[in-house]
């Protein structure tokens, strides 16, 4: 009798074994070193660049615009809250040589004494954050050279009183370090170095700065973006310049909304920086949020794909 029980038990276990879920037979291999995608949705936050690059054979056409002061002495209803003025306009084209290497050209109006800017730039993302955290951050190098095409100013104290061609050049070098903490939150730190061959009298040729920024998703297509840049200007230079020009230096702070319409990225932002280019907003933001000297800005970017198929 017992034996029969054993037989039944044993066969029962054998059958259960056979019906073991097919689940366990299949396993999906995780692609090795899978990269984190979409840390940011576009190559720019508001004032800062991001680690994002466009892919090989893609072109990004981008128009940035900064209006005049919304409030304060230069804003208000008389110039329709700044919409009558534009402090800076930049039109740029970027092209993907590789998935992680972009080159670009741009023309900007310029918002300081130095105007009519032509820019050549390069962005190289040499490290990409991985899903398994083997690589915890993405890191990109951004470098740009800007040349001013304007007529040299006569005032010898002016930053635009060029005497040689090389006086017209300025260089920006940034290391963009970013991490996507979750699908909803990405943060970035941007150590920056700016070199201007020629500056206003008693200003600094070399300037270090630290930028921080982030993006928080509100919905699938809308995100809040913000960035802040802190330049390390020598206090003696700063004091002198502020006394001579009668203008104070401020740190650029931008906050905005980023909307992804699928192909278009539309930014609606507010910042106290009048200039769009790194070579200018890092060193010369003379407007203050506290005085109502912030402005509406927008940018429209459109990506074109030249890959076959």
């Amino acid at each position, binding site marked *: 009798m*017992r*034996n029969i029980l054993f037989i039944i038990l044993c066969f029962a276990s054998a059958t259960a074994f*056979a019906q073991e879920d097919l689940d366990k037979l299949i396993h999906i291999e995780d692609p090795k070193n899978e990269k984190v995608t979409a840390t940011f949705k576009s190559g720019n936050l508001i004032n800062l660049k991001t680690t994002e690059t466009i892919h090989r054979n893609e072109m990004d056409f981008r128009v940035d615009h900064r209006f005049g002061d919304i409030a304060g002495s230069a804003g208000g209803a008389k110039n329709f809250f700044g919409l009558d003025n534009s402090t800076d306009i930049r039109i740029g084209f970027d092209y993907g040589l590789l998935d992680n290497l972009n080159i670009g050209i741009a023309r900007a109006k310029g918002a300081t004494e130095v105007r009519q800017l032509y820019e050549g730039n390069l962005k190289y993302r040499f490290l990409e954050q991985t899903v398994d955290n083997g690589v915890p951050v993405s890191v990109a190098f951004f470098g740009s050279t800007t040349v001013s095409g304007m007529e040299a100013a006569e005032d010898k104290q002016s930053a635009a009183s060029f005497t040689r061609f090389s006086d017209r050049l300025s260089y920006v070098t940034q290391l963009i370090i970013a991490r996507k903490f979750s699908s909803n939150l990405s943060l970035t730190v941007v150590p920056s170095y700016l070199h201007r061959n020629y500056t206003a009298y008693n200003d600094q040729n070399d300037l270090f700065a630290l930028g921080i920024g982030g993006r928080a998703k509100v919905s699938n297509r809308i995100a809040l973006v913000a960035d802040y840049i802190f330049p390390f200007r020598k206090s003696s230079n700063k004091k002198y310049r502020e006394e001579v020009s009668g203008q104070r230096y401020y740190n650029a702070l931008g906050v905005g909304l980023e909307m992804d319409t699928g192909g278009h990225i539309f930014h609606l932002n507010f910042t106290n920086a009048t200039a769009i280019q790194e070579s200018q907003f890092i060193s010369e933001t003379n407007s203050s949020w506290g005085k109502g000297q912030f402005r509406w800005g927008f940018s429209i970017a459109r990506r074109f794909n030249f890959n076959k198929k």
Partner: protein
Amino acid sequence: MNKISIFSIFFLMVLGGIAAFAQETSSLVSKETSITFFSSAPLEDIEAKSTLAASAMNIKTGDIIFRVKNTSFQFDKKLMQEHFNENYMESDKYPLSEFKGKIEGTEKLIKDGNYTLNVKGTLQIHGVTKPYTAAAVFNVRAGIIKATASFPVRLADHKIAIPSIVGKKIAEVVKIKVEALYKQ
């Protein structure tokens, strides 16, 4: 009596093990599994394929399973791939898509030949599970079973929202094609 019963336990365990092993072979794992989808809309045709999918079937019970990691789908345009994962599939939240079902009439698959059999089951995409039935073609040759099936999936059924601005680029109903090659 005691000795005999210990012996019989041992014997039966071995027998049970053999039986389990014999049964095990009725489960077939696919060596090559691919899943492709096609979206045909007025402005754009989109095709993406994953060759990193996995599948297994049981030739006795007819049970069949497919599973694929959404981020493994490869698109010609990488920006589309990013949108696919970020905006539509939300691959962070729902990393896998899965089909679990039963093949009707698997006893035929013992002999070589071509068979069209119905497969009934549930498909989970974007965290939403829906019942599906599709006709699958099984090609059996020397113990190797090649299976292919194709069926439509309505994106709205799986709560995948297409904004009207890109409505002419993405089809409301996409065609899914699955291929698997089962070997013993």
